[in-house]
């Protein structure tokens, strides 16, 4: 995708010349502008308390002091301090914020500069811990005094309990309290807007009743990255025609009676989409990971997997019986260390003999963090240590890259360098299912040995047709440029939304370009309050809490879409601004960019 810095500079200068960023005309004396500008920056960038100078913050503190000297430099609109919320250190007034095109920063440094994983403020961490202790104590008191409204286990003396003690306690006394924020039924197609069915609970989350009313909300929770989730249009018409012609289901697995021309065409199209030799498709995205990893790996192999990998990958790895080593999230030095240890010391269970194979498993875009994997470095490490690379592009295929080809496209890497490209059709293609793409040898092996190919039923005809049509639209093979427009729209939406959120002052994780935006709220009660309040303001979002995220990092996850217009995003951002003021969500301590962000 590169850096849009160069084309952003020109309109930025223009807008700066016509207004002052604060609505005043650009005629007053330069000094006055500069003083006002520096005053505003000083006001917003100076911490409200003296920052404790630890080893981690030493650089941050010294850079904050540097900001006070901007008045000494000359004033020039192009060389103005361009602080956007994602810059970790303040750039001095003499230099531009460098980009990859300038060749000042290496691509790796630029990538880390664009990702933000801000530390939690101390008081919030303490409050979160204390709040959880309080909830646990209250839960125990509840458990002691009152009988929960759950089904009882009868006749189980002498048998192991059905439910794990902590899990059932947590789900009954902590999760149950804000259970109305999850599993909300909808009654429309989840495009850029959706209709929620309202429900009320009279006994604090044990049971729900429908009120009969509906709420039309802006949809910021669906994985609808390219906006293909709609009930009208070419995709829908083609799927309907295929359903009428070929039926609704093949009722068989691929190896028995489920092999058809449509599926063969789809596989060839998928292989062409990525520029690899062959591909194989499956009916379910989760099953693609969980059932194919056991056929690729066996007990003598080593798997090096990222800390924040998805549950489907972890399940597949456990099923396979291979040895699993975890490396820190997106940390290339840790990956290097793990690989080196593995190659040098071999398999301890086999007396130090070398591993049968070493496989690195990463995801393209991590859905809970919003971060993008450092693909060029992973490929370099893989070549150095002669390991295999399995790239799970569930969220990144279609959403990243100038042609929608995922992270291999985004980093301009050779798709043949990645041994196994895996992904799902659920997110960007508006359908269901998963695929694995790679060399012909790999795909032939999977056709013979994969559990999902042999036992799971094949993709049904209208769904396969939806994938086929949407792929052709993205590649531009249907003659229109709708695909290109969607990709551009998604990229602009993602950048704009992230920059505006940073300007508002909330903590978000992840890289500037990823369309998944997790906003951190840390406290459990705040997840519930934010989701409920946003629903009353007609915005539907998804909150994520304990089992999916670490217990102290509750988050609200926004999934942007090419179907969202700027007006919808502006409306959402205004509401988020108000809510974060009311609930105290503006934890970020980075310097804020005060200029209006252009789209």
């Amino acid at each position, binding site marked *: 995708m590169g850096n849009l810095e160069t084309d952003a500079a020109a309109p930025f200068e223009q807008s700066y010349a016509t207004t002052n960023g604060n609505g005043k005309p650009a005629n007053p004396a330069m000094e006055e502008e500069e003083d006002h500008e520096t005053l505003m920056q000083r006001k917003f960038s100076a911490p409200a308390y003296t920052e404790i100078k630890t080893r981690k913050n030493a650089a941050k503190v010294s850079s904050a002091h540097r900001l006070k000297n901007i008045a000494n430099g000359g004033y020039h609109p192009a060389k103005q301090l361009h602080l956007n919320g994602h810059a970790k250190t303040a750039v001095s007034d003499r230099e531009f914020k460098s980009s990859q095109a300038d060749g000042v920063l290496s691509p790796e440094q630029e990538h880390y500069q664009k990702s933000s994983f801000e530390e939690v403020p101390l008081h919030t961490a303490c*409050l979160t811990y*204390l*709040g*959880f202790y*309080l*909830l646990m104590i*209250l839960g125990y*008191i*509840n458990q002691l005094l009152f009988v929960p409204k759950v089904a009882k286990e009868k006749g189980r003396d002498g048998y192991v309990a059905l439910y794990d003690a902590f899990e059932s306690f947590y789900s009954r006394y902590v999760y149950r*309290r*804000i259970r109305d924020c999850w599993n909300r039924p909808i009654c429309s197609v989840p495009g850029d807007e959706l209709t929620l069915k309202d429900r009320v609970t009279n006994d*604090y989350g044990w049971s729900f009743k429908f009120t009969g009313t509906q709420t039309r909300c802006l949809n910021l929770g669906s994985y609808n990255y390219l906006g293909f989730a709609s009930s009208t249009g070419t995709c829908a018409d083609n799927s309907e025609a295929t359903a009428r012609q070929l039926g609704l289901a093949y009722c068989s697995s691929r190896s028995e009676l489920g092999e058809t021309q449509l599926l063969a065409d789809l596989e060839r199209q998928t292989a062409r989409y990525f520029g690899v030799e062959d591909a194989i498709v499956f009916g379910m995205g989760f099953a693609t990971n969980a059932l194919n990893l056991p056929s690729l790996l066996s007990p003598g192999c080593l798997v090096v997997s990222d800390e924040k990998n998805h549950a489907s990958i972890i399940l597949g790895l456990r099923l396979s019986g291979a040895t699993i080593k975890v490396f820190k999230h997106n940390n290339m030095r840790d990956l290097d260390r793990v690989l080196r240890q593995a190659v040098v010391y071999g398999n301890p269970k086999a007396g130090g003999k070398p591993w049968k194979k070493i496989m690195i498993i990463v995801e393209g875009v991590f859905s809970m963090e919003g971060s993008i994997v450092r693909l060029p470095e992973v490929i370099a490490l893989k070549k150095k240590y002669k390991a295999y690379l399995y790239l799970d592009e569930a969220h990144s295929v279609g959403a990243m890259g100038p042609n929608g080809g995922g992270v291999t496209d985004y980093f301009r890497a050779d798709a043949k360098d990645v041994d196994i490209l895996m992904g799902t059709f659920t997110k960007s293609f508006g359908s269901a299912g998963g695929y694995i793409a790679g060399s012909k040898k790999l795909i032939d092996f999977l056709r013979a040995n994969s559990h999902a190919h042999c036992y799971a039923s094949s993709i049904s005809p209208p769904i396969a047709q939806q994938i086929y049509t949407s792929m052709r639209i993205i590649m531009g093979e249907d003659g229109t440029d709708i695909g290109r427009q969607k990709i551009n729209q998604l990229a602009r939406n993602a950048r704009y939304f992230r920059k505006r959120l940073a300007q508002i002052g909330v903590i978000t994780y992840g890289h500037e370009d990823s369309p998944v935006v997790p906003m951190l709220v840390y*406290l*459990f*009660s*705040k997840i*519930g*309050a934010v989701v409920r309040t946003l629903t009353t303001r007609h915005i539907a979002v998804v909150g994520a809490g304990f089992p999916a995220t670490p217990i102290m990092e509750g988050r609200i996850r926004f999934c942007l879409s090419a179907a969202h217009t700027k007006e919808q995003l502006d409306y959402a951002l205004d509401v988020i601004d108000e809510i974060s003021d*009311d*609930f*105290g969500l503006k934890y970020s301590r980075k310097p804020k960019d005060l200029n209006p962000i252009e789209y």
Partner: protein
Amino acid sequence: MDDNKRKPTAYEKFIRSLQRLYFVYELNTQISICEPWEKVFCNLLLCSCLCLILYASFAYVPSYCLLLFQFLVPGTASNTSSYTSADKFFSAESFYK
């Protein structure tokens, strides 16, 4: 209707800010998602702890509390009373020596 929207009196603003403060306190301590009897229980617990601390500080270190009070509310500082307490303190010291 219009009157309510356009002219919130200072009193109303004060009440609203108090309500907002209470709501933020509820959110941060995660009491907001609890049932009413749990809220009452937790609030009572917190208030009783605070009262205990305040009572203990008044009962066991009264001189310091008085000094703090006089520091915070400058109008009530009276020289004679502070001198007598200091005198008593010094005389007690010399007695032990």
